[in-house]
């Protein structure tokens, strides 16, 4: 994975300077309007990154924080299906697309990037190469990584690699139990060895969602909040099951209260200074 990123290295120089210039601009009034970038990633596929990203986008909307999103599931797009209005499909390893993301970061918006499985460390490397992580460390940006943990663990390598980049940024561990009612197969020792090293990591637990409700939202391809409001993509009244909407509402409220508890809104509103 790294090789792909490194192949693009020459082009990245341009990106680097451009990112710098926008960083300089924003650092003038950084105490109030620091742009926020939230990376949602995982050590493996199928742990519900896109689902978490969707709850996050709904949450930001509810908090009236302007947001935009990038879907790295290139070229197909998984997030794009649910949020076509704000989510753009990009290839995060290509310099052109990196420019699209990082040169347009502005203070008015929170940028959420759904990082495809296996691309987390490549993305972090790219961010480090363009000087973004360093700038975030200095407080020019708010940079947060949402690390989604599935019920079991496949490979620790990528986590270990990712962790080495995360010294200066906000790290949020998300235990995703959306499809699992029972238990979390994490060995506490392994867990601690990788994650307790990161200072100030926050923890969020996403509770289980009724599987029929989950399935129904997938089929309708609308954001969770739109489903709850019983509307179609274009805002017309829909006829979703009241019970299923009730389940989704109940579940989403619990997820949001987790975000509240972990201070995600404050993160995205850039009111908190970087560690």
């Amino acid at each position, binding site marked *: 994975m790294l090789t792909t990123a490194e192949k693009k290295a020459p082009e990245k120089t341009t990106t680097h300077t451009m990112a710098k210039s926008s960083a300089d601009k924003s650092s003038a009034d950084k105490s109030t309007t620091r742009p926020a970038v939230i990376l949602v990633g995982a050590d493996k596929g199928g742990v519900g990154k896109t689902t978490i990203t969707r709850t996050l986008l709904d949450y930001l909307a509810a908090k009236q924080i302007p947001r935009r999103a990038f879907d790295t599931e290139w070229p197909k797009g998984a997030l794009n299906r649910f949020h076509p209005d704000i989510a753009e499909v990009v290839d995060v390893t290509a310099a052109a697309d990196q420019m699209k993301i990082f040169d347009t970061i502005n203070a008015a918006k929170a940028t959420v990037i759904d990082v495809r499985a296996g691309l987390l460390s490549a993305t972090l490397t790219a961010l480090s190469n363009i000087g973004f992580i360093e700038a975030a460390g200095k407080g020019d940006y708010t940079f947060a990584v949402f690390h989604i943990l599935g019920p079991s663990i496949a490979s620790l390598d990528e986590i270990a690699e990712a962790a080495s980049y995360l010294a200066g940024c906000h790290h949020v561990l998300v235990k995703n139990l959306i499809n699992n009612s029972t238990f979390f197969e994490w060995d506490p020792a392994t867990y601690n060895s990788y994650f307790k090293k990161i200072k100030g990591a926050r923890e969020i637990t996403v509770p289980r969602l*009724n*599987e*029929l*409700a989950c399935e129904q939202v997938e089929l309708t391809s609308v954001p969770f909040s739109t489903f709850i409001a019983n509307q179609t993509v274009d805002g017309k009244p829909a006829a979703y*099951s*009241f*019970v*299923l*909407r*009730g*389940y989704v*509402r*109940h579940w989403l409220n619990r997820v949001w209260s987790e975000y509240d508890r972990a201070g995600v809104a404050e993160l995205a509103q850039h009111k908190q200074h970087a560690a």
Partner: protein
Amino acid sequence: MAVFGIGARARAAGPPAAPGRQPVFVVCAARPGVGCTLVARLLVDYLSADGRRALAFDLNPDNRALARHLPLQAIPADIGDTRGRMALFDRLIVNDGSPKVVDVAAALFDRFFEVMGQVGFAGEARARAIDVIVLFVTTGDQRSVDAYHRLFLRRGLFTLVPVKNAVNRSPFGRPAELPADALPPLAIDRMPAAHADTVERPGFSFADALRRPAALNDFTKRAFVAFRDLELRLQMAEFADLFRLSAE
């Protein structure tokens, strides 16, 4: 007949409540065998006699007595799985003008209110002008008293009415036994012993009993008067708000 104006009501258009309002009655108890289904049957027959076609749901998976007695009006329901919950609650939340009656088995008492809370039934019902009225059949034991008080804590979500069924041993419902702002109980008489079998006969309807002079007539009449009384009281409560607003 004249007492209730039943014939007149059937001819005159519309239910008595404000236009568009529709009740969902939940008949429940914390213990089995306290006459829940009897209250549900009386209620459905009362609504029919009043010219309103009620839709009933039999939430008694082990027995289905309500569905047996009211094959045309009562639908067997279940809340064991998501599909069953969808079939029940998705139907209850539709304001189609016909009153709904749900007969909840004691075994499903807690589960029913849990699901109701989870899917946010009360809030959506309010938004759709649906009045949720919980008829709780009381008995004197601690379990029943506790269950009543648990429901009473959630009285902001629905109207809670205790039901004193005289058949039960020491049903509670005297003013001293209820919280200060609780609704007074609805009283159901003891059924005349000679007719206990009659009402179990297939096809028996309390509304029919009302039309024929018989010993059951009095029992049914008093039960129907109790229901009418309850409806008037609930309507008065609504009007009271209106009066209060206009006075200010």
